[in-house]
């Protein structure tokens, strides 16, 4: 691994913008076809961190993503405008059926094809599924270490020191490359690309890869590769009563609410 030009790889997911996802009133299923895609927020933090590493140490940033169809061009341009040097899209029509097992296998094969990188950065979960599996699974598939929930990452001569934030403790850990790092939103604030960066982005390469380029058989659906089968996705029946407390001044509303909470036994009169 040459320290002169380290390579940093980011695994990113294009996912439906959950904030804009509507429910079909008949079936209660999500109307996925209508929801715009976005870059999964956690992956933007992963990319930002990779770009910061590049700015501090030189080298290149490459983004890998498994997609069912070519994503909207503006999202790919955003990755490049934020500082990625190349985007490699693994296009597979059955990608929507891939679970974390299948996704990690494919991304790992793509990482092997890229070769000779120092660190793979992933968001700790995706905004749509938030399974939090793909980062550690890639590490296991490639037999390399993983650091999850990283809140600060420092590189020195091909070795990394990371701060981790867990529920009950914080840790500082050290690990030699190559490794996988998964990050949450704590680690940084992703940049907004400038107009100039956006214009420059279209000059950078975007490549489409297919499963056969990664040495996989072509004629299988990724559903068969998956360990999990999703049988149904529905908006749950409203679990919450959702009663509006309104009418009148803040004092009147507050008085009403206080009486409701009291009647429910939620206010202790001590």
């Amino acid at each position, binding site marked *: 691994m040459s320290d002169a030009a380290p390579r940093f790889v980011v695994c990113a997911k294009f996912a439906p913008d959950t904030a804009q996802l509507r429910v079909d009133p008949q079936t209660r299923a999500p109307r996925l076809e209508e929801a715009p895609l976005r870059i999964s927020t956690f992956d933007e933090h992963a990319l930002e961190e990779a770009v910061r590493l590049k700015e501090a140490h030189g080298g290149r940033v490459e983004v890998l993503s498994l997609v069912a169809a070519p994503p909207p061009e503006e999202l790919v341009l955003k990755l490049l405008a934020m500082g990625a040097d190349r985007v490699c899209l693994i296009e597979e029509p059955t990608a929507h059926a891939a679970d974390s097992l299948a996704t990690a296998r494919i991304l790992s094969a793509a990482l092997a094809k890229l070769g000779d990188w120092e660190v793979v950065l992933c968001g700790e979960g995706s905004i749509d599924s938030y399974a939090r599996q793909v980062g550690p699974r890639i590490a296991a598939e490639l037999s390399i270490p993983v650091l999850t929930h990283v809140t600060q990452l420092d590189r020195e001569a091909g070795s990394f020191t990371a701060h981790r934030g867990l529920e009950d403790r914080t840790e500082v850990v050290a*690990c030699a490359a190559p490794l996988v790092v998964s990050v949450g939103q704590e680690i940084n604030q992703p940049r907004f690309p400038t107009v100039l960066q956006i214009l420059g982005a279209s000059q950078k390469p975007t490549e489409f890869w297919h499963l056969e380029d990664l040495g996989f058989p072509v004629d299988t659906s990724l559903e068969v590769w998956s360990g999990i089968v999703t049988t149904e996705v529905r908006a749950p029946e409203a679990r919450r009563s959702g009663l509006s407390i309104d009418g009148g001044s803040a004092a009147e509303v507050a008085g009403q609410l206080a009486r409701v909470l009291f009647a429910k036994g939620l206010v202790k009169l001590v």
Partner: protein
Amino acid sequence: MTDRGAICVFSENREVVLELLAAGRPLADQAQANLVSIVLEKRASTPTESHVIVEEQIALGADGVLIVEDVPDRAGAAFEVAALQHVVNLHEPHMLLMGGTAHGTEVLAQLAQRLQVGCATDCTNLEFRNGILEIERTVFGRFTCRQTFRTRPALASVRPRRFAPPERCGERHGGVERVRVEAPVDPVRVVERRERVASGERIDRAACIVAVGRGLRSAQDLPMIEALAQALDGTVGATRPLTNDLEWLPIDAKVGLSGTTVRPKLYIACGISGQIEHIVGMRESEVVVAINTDSAAPIMAEADYRVIGDLYEVVPALTRALRELRP
């Protein structure tokens, strides 16, 4: 005890193990299988300590305890992955259920890839239907998805505090089995480890939480939120921007994905829009009140009581109204 087809549970967190026993007991009954708790026994632990743990696990629902003994005192995730892989290969359980802590999820996902099996994290429900294990988990922030497993063993996790710990039952009996696992080389070196020191009441134990988000304009307005919490005998919680970006509150006040999962009797969300990373941390609350100027904010879908209004008016008014209720 650990015949093939058992339902195994494991968590590095002793409180979470109890929740797993509560979640696993009905599954073991449905599958007519043994519920087996996997325990890592540190080298330094005494026979008395181990005995207490075994006794507790069995009294709380385990049919057996599988002790991985002679665990190096500094063993971390790499050891747990290796130990669980060894146990799974040895005993071929139907299922391994783990706690969805940050650490537990990392271990579980690596184990799943080593075994080349599917894994469902953060399940909200698990049951056998006609002999087939079905789980539910949340996707797209607020949708419930049902999933089944194509591979065995079924690996799954539940979020901490999703299940209440089981009642103790003194009349239960169970077996104990011991295995040893060779410690792998752990490529990750821990330089420093700091337990979080709680800055106040532990938020995951609070019966009432008054949580605040970006609707709060200044840290100087926090006493207004604290006053409401005090009137309700509760604790103040916050969203990620307030604890991390603005640092107005200590990190252990953070409710959500990267913070604490809470399950209070009453959760009052003040000026919180309801980003998914916050929602998953509070959605198990029994009663939720949302106070927000925006009636379309996602938090409203999670609220039993919706107050469309300015928290700067409603919160002080509510504090006064609650104080007036008191004799």
